């Protein structure tokens, strides 16, 4: 039976369900908190050439788009002649995978009737990878943990026991990390079972026709969307905190017909600390931001990603060279959409939001007994927290909501069962949204205290403390972030610090920028913000000229 266009549409629809099932399997079996709670994973199907055909919609665009590139690296490194039925490949190479050592990517070739037809791939953030632990303080990638080059996790169904032993000997939570490696492999198998059933149902023996159909129609739709963007060259820059010195992110966007190029020439050089970003991750987030604004409905696959040509000169902080430290590459990575959208705004006014807090304020807390002889256990706690998003041309920004990341926060009650901390406060930060005709989203305030018998350490990796999210078209900046003790003692926004028993850590997360002149905000909205306490009476007067 030769498939018709309708058959291809139905199969495409099915493939999206297949990769969702692949992702669901991973979410349900993974150990990593960030995978299960926050959807920090990706899963997808690729054709024989390594072109991505379908991908599950999960919490992290950074993974998604980076993984799309990685399969071609596997094909190149392993060599087509060395790909056998029952093989499973693995890597956590930040430059070939998804940007830091904590992300393990597993690729499983798929066979039908003895013929190699494609690959399933998936990526997850593991709880530990050895080295210094998750944080920006390393000066070379070697300090950040174990690097697994592209290699076989299993050959013809036989697991590489030496690799497992090596991993076990190098990480703090060997059961969980090795367990996650198996979970990754198992989720690819789950995807393959469904794919095989579908191919049987539709009577096809290879994926070529379907892959061409998906990729060609997605490319065509994306190119058509790009063609609607006016031609021109659009430049934009944004200064962010970085680690110890401010970072300039500079982009040049060239649009010509249905072609779009973004290049980050002019961006600051690399940092000595782990905030550097491998180019693959920069590309992932730049592409994500542009796609949201230009072609949001086109599903993610090679056809919809390829038309966005994104480059950064090697050696800048957004295209870090080996052996740069890259552990917390997400901080600057999450800020990339703001800078590309700023450039796109010149081409498409009235489409993109103002800048937002953007980088997550993730905090890893290591609770340690104040008295080492007390016999109390060490505990680790991870929290994901978000500031405000930028105001949109027609809507206010979203308060305490992740963008561009799509992760979720965890319950405070559940977190307090995990470790000996009390979270005294986690609520909206009044007045932190940038003023504008449309107001920026509010940040939040979090106060955390070690419980009796404990102190804690935390790894700060927070941006937009020195450089707040800027407004657009006359909108004001959102409030900058603050890191301090509740008694007012200032703390650093990057690096490992201690909070002693009896003290409270206070995090004030940044707000999003406003859109349009505050004077143009309608009175009812100002009154509503006042009534609900999202802005103060002083702000109402100073920013909006509201006298009541």
């Amino acid at each position, binding site marked *: 039976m030769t498939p*018709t*266009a*309708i058959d291809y*549409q*139905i199969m495409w*629809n*099915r493939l999206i*369900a297949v990769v*969702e099932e692949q992702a*669901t*399997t991973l979410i*349900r079996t993974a*150990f990593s*908190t960030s995978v*299960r*709670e926050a959807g920090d994973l990706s899963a997808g199907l690729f054709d024989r050439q390594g072109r991505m055909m379908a991908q599950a*919609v999960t919490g992290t*665009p950074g993974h998604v788009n980076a993984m799309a590139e990685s399969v071609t690296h596997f094909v190149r490194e392993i060599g087509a002649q060395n790909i056998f039925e029952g093989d499973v490949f693995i890597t956590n190479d930040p430059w070939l995978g998804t940007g830091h050592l904590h992300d393990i990517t597993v690729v499983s070739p798929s066979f039908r009737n003895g013929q190699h037809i494609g690959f399933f791939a998936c990526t997850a953030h593991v*709880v530990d990878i050895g080295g210094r632990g998750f944080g920006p303080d390393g000066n070379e990638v070697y300090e950040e943990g174990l690097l697994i080059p592209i290699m076989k996790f299993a050959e013809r169904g036989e697991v590489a026991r030496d690799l497992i032993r090596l991993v076990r000997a190098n990480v703090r939570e060997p*059961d*969980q990390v090795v367990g996650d490696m198996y979970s990754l492999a*198992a989720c690819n198998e*789950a995807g393959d079972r*469904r794919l095989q*059933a579908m191919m049987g149902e539709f009577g096809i023996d290879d994926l070529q026709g379907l892959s061409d159909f998906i990729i060609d*129609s997605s490319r065509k*739709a994306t190119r058509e969307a790009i063609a609607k963007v006016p031609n021109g060259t659009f430049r934009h820059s944004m200064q962010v905190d970085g680690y110890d010195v401010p970072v300039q992110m500079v982009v040049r966007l060239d649009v010509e017909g249905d072609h779009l190029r973004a290049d980050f020439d002019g961006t600051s050089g690399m940092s000595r600390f782990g905030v550097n970003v491998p180019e693959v991750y920069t590309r992932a987030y730049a592409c994500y931001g542009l796609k*949201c604004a230009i072609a949001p*409905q*086109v599903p993610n696959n090679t056809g919809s990603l390829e038309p966005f040509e994104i480059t950064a000169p090697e050696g800048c902080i957004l295209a870090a060279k080996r052996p740069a430290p890259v552990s917390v590459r997400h901080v600057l990575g999450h800020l990339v959409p703001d800078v590309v959208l700023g450039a796109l705004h010149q081409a498409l006014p009235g*489409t993109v939001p103002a800048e937002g807090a953007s980088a997550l304020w993730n905090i890893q807390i290591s609770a340690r007994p104040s008295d080492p002889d007390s016999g109390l256990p060490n505990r680790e706690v991870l929290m994901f*927290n978000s500031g405000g998003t930028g105001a*949109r041309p*027609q809507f206010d920004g*979203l*308060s*305490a*909501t*992740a*963008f561009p990341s*799509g*992760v979720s*926060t*965890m*319950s*405070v*009650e*559940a977190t*307090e*069962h*995990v470790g000996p901390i*009390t979270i*005294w*406060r*986690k*609520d*909206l930060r009044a007045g932190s949204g940038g003023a504008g005709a449309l107001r920026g989203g509010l940040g*939040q305030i979090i*106060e955390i205290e070690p419980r009796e018998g404990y102190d804690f350490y935390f790894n700060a990796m927070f941006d937009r403390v020195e450089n707040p999210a800027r407004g657009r078209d006359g909108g004001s900046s959102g409030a900058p972030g603050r890191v301090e003790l509740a008694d007012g003692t200032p703390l650093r926004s990057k690096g490992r610090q201690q909070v002693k028993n009896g003290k409270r850590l206070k995090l004030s997360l940044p707000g999003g920028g406003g859109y349009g002149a505050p004077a143009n905000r309608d009175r009812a909205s100002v009154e509503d913000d006042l009534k*609900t306490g999202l802005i103060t009476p002083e702000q109402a007067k100073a920013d909006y000229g509201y006298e009541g």
Partner: protein
Amino acid sequence: MAIPKTRVGVDIGGTFTDVALAHPGGLSTCKVLTNYTQPEQAILDGITIAAEKAGIALAEIGQVIHGTTLVTNALIERRGARLAFITTEGFRDVIEMRSENRFEQYDLNLTLPVPLVSREDRFTLKERMGPNGEVLLPLDPVEVQTMVQRVLDGGYDAVAIGLMHSYANDAHEVQMAEALRAAVPDLSISISSVISPQMRELPRFNTVIANAYVQPQVADYLGRLVARLQEAGVSAPVFMLHSGGGLISVDVAAEQPVRLLESGPAGGAIFAADFARGHGLDSVLSFDMGGTTAKICLIEGAEPKTANTFEVARTYRFKKGSGMTVSTPVVEMVEIGAGGGSIASIDSLGRIQVGPRSAASEPGPACYGRGGTEPTVTDANLLLGRLDPENFAGGAIPLSPDASDKAVADRLAAKLDIGVSDAAFGVTEMVDENMANAARVHTVENGRDIEHFTMIGFGGGAPLHACRLCEKLGIRELIIPPGAGVGSAIGFLKAPFSYEATRGLFQRVESFDAEAVNAALKELEAEAAAFVNAGANGEATTTRLTAFMRYSGQGWEIPVPLPYKTFVDADRTQILEAFEAAYRTLFGRVIDGLGVEVTNWSLVVASVLPETTPVVRHDSGTVVTPLRTRQFYDAARRQAVDAVEVDRKDMTPGRAVDGPAIIVEAETTTIVTSAYRAVGQGDGSLRLTAKGDTQ
């Protein structure tokens, strides 16, 4: 107390109020239009009609069982009480900050659902409990009095109280509630440690707020209903079907209306469970398809699968995360925006998309001729010969194939440059794919293999689509019960009295504290038994215990059935084994070297259902005489096939028809594809099996 012989089930849905009256002479059913301003009027009308049909007096009715979408609708339509929410200082915005994520990854103009209680009506108390119920910051009585005054000054209709870790220690919530009650005796007050005593502040706060929001109106409605029934001569007690699939008294329902959220759909799952029991089927997937949505539920051992949280009032294309997560015991159902009225369109990539937008009943599908111009699933079914234009709804609604043809031709076929029947095929295949994919993912999430399930299909749309769905899912047996149009109301009559009491009590298995657990379970049992005995006085009951458990560090618990007994510390081994068995079922393996913990406990007390007589099942039968031969489009064969049309009345026990066949009745049409055959069963249902299995 024996179950009365004459009982009536009433389901108020969005369009129709369904009545099913069981009496010594059989079952009498009817449908009347839902009355939005006075729902109780439609109930009275319906009961009166059904009683007349059955030839019995209203006074003979011994029990009224009611389920309603009233609570869900009040939440969706934001028609509720003016409400104050009192919470712990520092946590005023929990319900507004939600999970801090976006449920739609690529939409820059996403808007989030507005919280039920606006920020200015959310007040905080200086107080704090720790995770184990220890008081970290005591509640000052002066602070309590100030709060009472604020609530008074605000003139609220209802108050919800939700404090941090109150599932572990309710003292501060109770203290606040008592002070309010002392000051305003008739104020509606809901507290989270009663309504939803489970760990995780967001769902618990949502739940107590939803309860308070609808409580005054539900209490008022139920009061009117009971009074009107009595005036009309129905003096029987009224019971409500709760979302967990059991019955509670009308008084409990008026106090805890949030338990009624999914009561209508839960009735459908019980309806299917009853057929599963009769047919002796262990693994069943119920499939309920109406005009706007389809619902899927796993039924194992004749028990619908339940969960302790779910999402209500989704605001964005039925998308996970776009609604409000509440924690209350519920029959777990997957809802998809797929029904007969679902609208088909072409997206920017030239692909056919179906739903979740629906033409509903007004204007309805194009073929209804009521002004609808967009092509729907019903239009596609008509064009593919699966519906008879002369005989839809027993001939009550004449369908216009020309209108369907025009809608599909203009809106779909022309844009894709394909024929009308290819486009119509694309529409039904796409909607069937969507439903099949949802069913598959749901079974995977539960660690089950869908091929081993039997499907039970009901609701107006299911008999048209179920056989094709089975083909897609590899399901080889399908039951289409009779009376499928009023399935939920019939299901109400099959429900046990039951109450699920839950409690957050954190336990690490390695340091299992039997004494603490026993004390908590005793309270749960007393609580649940009291509610059940209010209805099932004297009937035998069973008690089922479930612990929600996980490996330390994991974020989600799995339900683990445990024996209900007095535990000793040494039972930790048994508990661990039970956890590992459940974990293995779901995930295929267990993990060594990790601690295991319990977060929440749930205890269900339920009345024992009467023994059912097994249905006489027929594998094959004598071939029934067809009414005529006509064509329909068989999706698996990609072509129109000559099918026999038979009257469902002729499909008596032991009468059979081979697919391709069309079985017609007034309420719906059952399509038997070429790969299946249908046999009438002892209970009036149709049993469809894959041909290879029964030849």
